């Protein structure tokens, strides 16, 4: 075991795994996180805690992880390289590991332009590829990038994100390969709506044998309404929702659109479960954590396995 995390154990035991995510609050109220964690509990193998996603200031992901952990859910810390230089990143890795956070997701982070402080200075001292590598070297070699020995190596199951729908397509698979070489153990994908593009991506991934080197968790996000679908398709970079998916939701009367969104999501998980090379799903029910049980249960993925 590299990290001994529950997520690692479940995946290594060959179970189809489930992760979800919690966005920390726009304030210091811990109850907010505890409430969300209660919805997540027993439905997942680990729960991502986002790091100031879309550059909107929120409670830190490390604090969120600790609150989630206290609530009996295994945390997965997201770390973006937008706001912290390599000194702060290393220090937070050490702190997170010391506090028992065993899963890590390395990300670039959305540009600060999208958040509430568009005038902020961005850091990007190292990129997400290099953060993966930094965490791996710390874990496996027990050294800082400077070569100095660590007093106790941080233990992380190291993840990265991939977006099969971003451009240019032809480097998507080579880029995943590079992330694996850098040290990624698992991957969580951007939310998938265009199953045709995703299937093509998986075919290309399998041709390179990458699905055997890394655990791929397919990302899904239930649509709450046709309005949300249209908004995301238009304004969120790297999201591709085909017309027919939007239409399926839009064809329902307003009050039934959410239920349709959940139905589509469950259907999709069913399809992903059967796909070769997919090791699990990452369910991003954005500000809709109360539906996780219905979705994950509906997809036949409950109860979650216990691996010792």
């Amino acid at each position, binding site marked *: 075991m590299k990290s001994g995390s529950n997520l690692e154990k479940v995946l290594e035991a060959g179970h189809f795994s489930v992760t979800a995510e919690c966005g920390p609050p726009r304030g210091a109220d811990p109850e907010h996180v505890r409430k969300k964690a209660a919805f997540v509990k027993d439905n997942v193998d680990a729960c991502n805690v986002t790091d100031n996603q879309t550059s909107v200031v929120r409670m830190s992901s490390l604090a969120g992880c600790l609150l989630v952990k206290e609530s009996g859910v295994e945390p997965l810390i997201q770390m973006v390289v*937008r706001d912290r230089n*390599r000194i702060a990143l290393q220090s937070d890795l050490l702190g997170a590991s010391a506090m028992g956070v065993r899963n890590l997701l390395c990300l*670039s*982070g*959305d*540009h600060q*332009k999208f958040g509430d402080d568009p005038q902020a200075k*961005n850091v*990007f*001292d*190292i*990129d*997400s*590829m*290099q953060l993966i*590598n930094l965490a791996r070297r710390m874990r496996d070699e027990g050294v800082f*990038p400077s070569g100095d020995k660590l007093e106790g190596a941080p233990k992380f199951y190291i993840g990265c*994100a*991939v*977006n099969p729908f*971003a*451009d*240019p397509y032809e*480097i998507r698979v*080579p*880029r995943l*390969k*590079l992330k694996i*070489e*850098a040290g990624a153990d698992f991957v969580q994908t*951007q939310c998938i709506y265009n199953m045709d593009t995703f299937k093509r991506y998986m075919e290309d991934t399998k041709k390179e044998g990458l699905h055997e080197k890394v655990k791929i968790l397919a990302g899904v996000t239930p649509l709450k309404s046709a309005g949300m679908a249209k908004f995301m398709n238009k304004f969120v*970079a*790297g999201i591709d929702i085909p017309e027919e998916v939007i239409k399926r939701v839009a064809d329902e009367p307003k009050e039934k659109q959410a239920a349709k969104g959940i139905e589509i999501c469950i259907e999709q998980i069913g399809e992903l479960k059967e796909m070769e090379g997919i090791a699990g799903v990452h369910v991003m029910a954005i500000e809709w954590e109360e539906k996780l049980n219905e979705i994950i249960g509906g997809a036949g993925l409950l109860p979650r396995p216990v691996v010792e």
Partner: protein
Amino acid sequence: MITGTPKPIEEILEMVEPYDNIIVAGCHGCVTVCRVGGHKEVEVLSSTLRLARESGGSKIEINELSLERQCDPEYVETLRPLIDDYQAVLSIACGAGIQFLAEKFSKTPILPGINTGFLGVTERQGEWSERCQGCGDCVLHLTGGICPVTRCAKQLFHGPCGGSTAGKCEIDQNVQCGWQLIIDRLKALDQMDNYLKLKPYKGWDSSRDGGPRRIIREDMI
């Protein structure tokens, strides 16, 4: 070249408000080429200031002049014989020129008339864009001649990020994704193997992060 944009006239008027006898100093270097700080701009700015002050009932005397380069001591020194006859200098050179004047003439307020921009190129008449951040450690041979530090909004060394869409950057539909450009170039040059290598952490110490920089060429001293 070093580019810039004129400061809003209201801001300049506020700066020169305490004075009634100033120099407006242009520069024949980069700022002339990008039409923000050459002699023509000195003339236009000076007339605008005179007119505005006159209509406000507080006249201002202006000596309009331009130096060959404000970043070179040889040319800066030509100001010395007249500097004490004026209360302030409004410089429309780049930030380097403005500061060099301030350094050389310690008793005269030197005011910035432009906002200095970036190291860039002329795309076409009236349009300039950034190419270099002067990071002090060039990697253009590995990235198809396109700079990831300058052209990628996140300065990624292993781009593109997940926000790259149809060649455009996630920050703005009008900004090209630097990494799409790099990949297109690497493909055209048959150098995609450069892409597939893990790059070491960038040493930002040769950049601004290492503190104010200095170049000493012993062979020239």
